[in-house]
């Protein structure tokens, strides 16, 4: 079957496992499983701008969703804040680091000669959240020089799990499943802007199954599956 026949979803890569499970579960309701293209939110947004045949966009942050809605490329009434996440401080499994993540905690000392791995704090959502959190906790300036920015949050996690970096800031969803790291602490919810994965139908979307797909993704059944992967569900279940 050609991709055109199906609902086409452009989703941030970090959602793969969760969204794949939801997609499968939703097949009866929608009629046919959606085709999901996972890539960086930035790439997906630009592709939609370039005329991609996507019906649904799931971004890893609000910025890229806003980028499209500003250009009237999404249907504003369909935009929903779908999922939430947390960021955590991780260390290699064999690390002896222990701390509580709170205002003014001595992150610099904990990092020592090593590096603090996190997503690119200008570009990668997890990096942006991490930086904001460290700033609000008042420790940013002390560790800024020790930050190793990764291409994406998965790469940051790899740096920690291989012992390359002493510490890292990643999503809770990533940390739980990675055996090579241990979670040292969770950043307080209020230390950073809320971590939100918004979803919306694109302006060009014509596929009649799209509504059904959106409805299912926002359903309670889907919520269970998302929660299994460690996400918090923001959309009101219907």
């Amino acid at each position, binding site marked *: 079957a050609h991709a055109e026949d199906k609902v086409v979803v452009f989703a941030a890569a*970090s959602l*793969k496992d969760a969204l794949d499970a939801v997609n499968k579960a939703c097949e009866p309701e929608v009629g046919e499983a959606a*085709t999901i293209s996972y*890539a960086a939110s930035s*790439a997906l947004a630009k*592709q939609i701008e*370039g005329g*991609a045949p996507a019906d649904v966009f799931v971004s890893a942050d609000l910025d890229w969703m806003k980028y499209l809605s500003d250009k009237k490329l999404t249907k504003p009434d369909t935009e929903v804040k779908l999922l939430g996440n947390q960021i955590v401080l991780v260390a290699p499994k064999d690390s002896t680091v222990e701390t509580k993540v709170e205002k003014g905690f001595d992150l610099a000392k904990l990092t020592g000669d090593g590096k603090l791995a996190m997503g690119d704090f200008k570009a990668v959502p997890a990096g942006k959240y991490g930086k904001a959190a460290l700033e609000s906790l008042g420790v940013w300036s002390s560790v800024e020089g020790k930050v190793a920015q990764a291409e*994406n949050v998965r790469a940051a996690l790899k740096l920690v799990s291989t012992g390359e970096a002493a510490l890292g800031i990643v999503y809770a969803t990533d940390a739980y499943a990675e055996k090579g790291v241990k979670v040292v602490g969770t950043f307080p919810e209020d230390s950073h802007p809320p971590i939100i994965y918004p979803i919306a139908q694109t302006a060009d979307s014509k596929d009649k199954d799209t509504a059904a797909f959106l409805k299912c993704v926002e359903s309670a059944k889907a919520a269970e599956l998302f929660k299994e992967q460690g996400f918090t569900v923001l959309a009101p279940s219907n």
Partner: protein
Amino acid sequence: MNWLLDLTPDEWNAVRLSIKVATVAMIASLPPGILLALLLARGRFWGKTLLNGLVHLPLILPPVVTGYLLLLTFGRRGPAGAFLAEHFGIIFSFRWTGAALACGVMGFPLMVRAIRLSIEAVDRRIEAAAGTLGANPFWVFVTITLPLILPGLIAGAILSFAKAMGEFGATITFVSNIPNETQTLPSAIYTFTQVPGGDAGALRLTLISIVISMVALVASEVLARRVGHRMDIE
């Protein structure tokens, strides 16, 4: 071996698609690759430096940038994309053809260089000898130059193929990562690396990718050796 080949249908499709994309990219690049290599090796014209730079561009630019430029140019709304779609019905955007275009473009500098080096090594006195026997420049090229540069052609083709098997940045940026349509092996591998516990899957696909490329590589070596044997320089 079993675990290696125990793939999901989508993964099988990625394998098939990668081979198709790499093969098409390689074959479609050959004619323009030969032409440009010839121009760069032999031509003397204004703007040659520029052309040379242009050919190398995909090497110099980060793949993501190349991908964006392709999107801007050959996308549905891009000038070339709109033109081709309207007049020839050729659509690249979010089709496997687009993946092939991206891979072809990324491998192009490698192919052109290999062919160009071979052309520059051809003894032009042999070509002149063919000319005295009545062959016009076109026939000289077909009957003398082309066979003599075959090893370089093969090297260029295999470089382009191998590059296509590994190309990811430009492809995913240009045509996204749509299963069964534009999800090549590298995109699939990328997707795996983006989820917790995806390493095993990524490794498996990586190994498959290596096996395919190795088969192509060995075939190219055998071919090149046979061609070379056939002609040990006089």
